[in-house]
């Protein structure tokens, strides 16, 4: 397995919203989708996944419905609600702003001060 980075606090919610925004997923599917999206570069601790899903559902950002999985098993599928979509957009913008600001800061050289 390639070298993996720990997840920054607060980014798990963002990643889950992003993963679900690409199509309905069950909990294990969310995990796989995140691994796939980050090409395995980020380590999602499985222990944190379900509490986060339940919290997001409780906040009305995710909808959950029971359905049937690829291997014909009953599974709970999560989809993004309108509020979730809005939150994803906001969080993405805020993330981009922060990360570009940090990237700029890290590129700074003494002479430019």
């Amino acid at each position: 397995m390639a070298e993996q980075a720990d997840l920054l606090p607060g980014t798990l919610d963002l990643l889950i919203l992003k993963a679900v925004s690409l199509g309905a997923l069950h909990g294990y599917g969310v995990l796989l989708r995140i691994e796939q999206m980050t090409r395995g570069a980020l380590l999602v601790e499985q222990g944190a996944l379900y509490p986060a899903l339940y919290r997001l559902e409780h906040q009305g950002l995710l909808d959950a419905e029971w359905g049937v999985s690829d291997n014909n098993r009953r599974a709970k599928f999560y989809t993004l609600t309108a509020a979730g979509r809005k939150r994803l957009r906001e969080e993405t913008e805020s993330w981009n702003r922060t990360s570009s600001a940090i990237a700029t800061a890290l590129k700074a050289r003494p002479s430019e001060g």
Partner: protein
Amino acid sequence: MPAKLRSFWRAVTRRDDFEDGMDAEMRFHLESRTADLMRRGLPPAEAARQARLEFGSIEKQKDEARAGAGLRLIDELIGDVRYALRTFRRNKGFAAAAIVTLALGIGANTAIFSLMDGLMLRHLPVHRPQDLWLLTFDEPAATGPVNETFSYPLLRVLESRNDIFAGIAGFSSDRRFTVGTGASMSRVSAAIVTGGFYETLGLVPALGRLLNPNDDAPGAPVAAVLSDGYWERAFARDPAVAGRPILLNGVTAEIVGVSPRGFSGANVGVTADVTIAVAALPAVVPPDADLLGRGNFWMRALARLRPGVSRDEAAARLSAAWPAIAQPAINPAWPERRKKDITDARVGFTPGATGWTYLRDMYTRPLKVLMGIVTLVLLIACANVASLMLARATARRREIAVRLAIGAGRGRIVRQLFVESAILSLAGAACGVALASLAGGAIVNVIATQRGALVLDLAPNVNILAFTMGVAMATALLFGIAPALQSTAAEPGSVLQEDRRTGTTRSRLLPSLVTAQMALSLILLIGSGLFIRTLRNLNTVDPGFQSEGVLIAGLEQRPGGVPASALERLRTLPGVLSASLSTHTPLSGSTWSEPALPVGQPLPEHDTAVFFGASPGFFTTLQIPIAAGREFTDADTRQSAPVAIVNEDYVRQYLANRNPIGQRLSAVVRNEKRELEIVGVVRTIAHFSLRGARPATVYVPYHQLTGNVPTTVEIRTIGSSATLTAAIQQTLQPLLPTAPVEVRLLSSQVNATLVQERMLATLGTGFGVLALALAAVGIYGLLGYGVARRTREIGIRMALGASPTGVVALILRGARAPLAVGIALGLPAAWALSRLFRSMLFGLTPADPIAIGGATLLLVLVAHAAAYLPARRAARVDPLVALKCE
């Protein structure tokens, strides 16, 4: 927020589904992961192990998921409740003591609040009661309380102003009619209402129809509406009753319908079983025909404004149109000043949702005082329960310390202890509501006067339940928080190391709670002492006549007065000492006044004296001393010269420095100008109340009056009045064909004027005794706990030679400090508080030494008695046993 509530609600209400779903979801995750790992080449057992390892603790995940869904709080609360109930089951004595104490404290509050609610807060059971206004009639020249009465013609004019009013409900109740004839005659409560009454209130009949404006027209047939309660009592809810005739005071009326259940008139507390329209009054009560004229202000009115008209607009329109409105209500023959009073008057609006009752004026202040009293009782009860909680918290120190040591947060434990308090408080409140409903009837009896049955709806309603819940929660906070904080404050390590058998730490909270109880009890005892002494002072006031042994019978329904011969038969009855007739009796609540001044002075428009019509024997029967001149005799008839007897206060006010006998008065007697010769002077008697000023009075011979005179018979008796009552009834009944004769005691009429004072003295004393008992339990608990804790110390003292008396003194000393400080705090507080109700006292000041001294002495005695029991137990400690048990 709504999404959160929805998901929370779903999770709470379908908890099993929630748990099953979570289970299935995580199982699915693990199986999928295992399958993936197997696909990568791991053997099944190793794949399953790896999947479980990656997933971590399932229970921890579930717990965090529950927290994510907002379920943790409710889970913990349910846990707390279960834990609390389990603890109470193990400590039944503690739980029972706390609940009983709280039930008494909260029940007292609920009972008094129910009374307040029934009298002042409960809305009339009518359509949109909050839109009703009680009309007031403000005469600028008038002084004294706000006038709420209107003349019938004035209400009719107001009613016709449909640019202002949607309807006006005029009413006058607190009357009695005779229903039926002969042996089946009974007296029922009655009300007189305007034609728009039921329509304005928006009531739907339970049967038939209600009165309407057609019934309130001159010459309309007499129509009667029954109350639902009377329909049930007298007619067993017979639906055929509508359309049937009913005899009212001997006059045939038609029962047109029954008013809805729960509604018994706009006069709160005074039910009306039969209601007729104003226009029918002259037929049913001929002497009251005058009431329909312009000069009598006797009806109260609830109004509903025209939709879209605000109270201010209505007032403005009324004031603009006032001269036109007032004109038809003014009698052109009136003197100018009387006319001006009406033209200058204004109609005002006060909220009318709660109807009207004379009881409100009477009881608002006493009820506020009682509310203060029961609040203090509740505080004392709180202090008791807090002491219990503290004692228990000490016993649970180790348990709490262990829980703190293994990682429970302090907030979490405080919350759990508070849940225990809340459960106790709610259980106490539930018992308290039950106690209050039981006591409610008794309390209504204390405040009921003899004016008729007082019917108040005291059934628990939203107001009462909300009040009780609020009180219970405040109570739980009061008695629960301090012990909870104190018992979790200690360092767990030190508690756990402490010797199990001898807890050394002492709570300073416990003695201060007992001190507060002593102070509060003293305040209550002084208060009830002041009220008891007030009642006693009023009971010993000499009213100027002897009411003991006098029976009275009202013959108001008798037209044309009673012949002198009727008294002869009464006087021959064995046991009758004397008998007389009069138009009024003292302290009856009804009165008659006229202008009367010595001849030569111009007669004023206002009345100058209270008038009584009295037959020969009146002063003998009531034992009113004659100061000068003579009593009325059989020679004073309509054919002889008009004479009068005046009282000493009349002489002092109008005939100072003159010999009154032989002086002549010019007076108006029942609309007739007369000259009266004074033939006697009598002692002044109390007439309006026992405590107020006594009026200048003129007595005229009953048999010199003309027309329909109100009549009461007074009979002074000796011996058993129970047997006499029947004989008197039999003798008088032929005089009164249209009503049953009711014989009453004059002394109970006098007592009825003291109903407010009696209520404060009775209920105040009851609550004072309750407070004292609670405080005694408090001091007993404090010392008993101390003795149990100090058994070893006492044993050592006795082993070293302390005498049992010395030990008793040692323990009693523990009671003295809270008692002394309590008294030191309670005395000034009682003095400050009692100044607030100074005007309710009679014949004493708030600094009354007997009330204060008596209350203090009682408190000291009871506190010592309560302290003596644990002290005696301490003196009986066997040193050997006490030391061996270590």
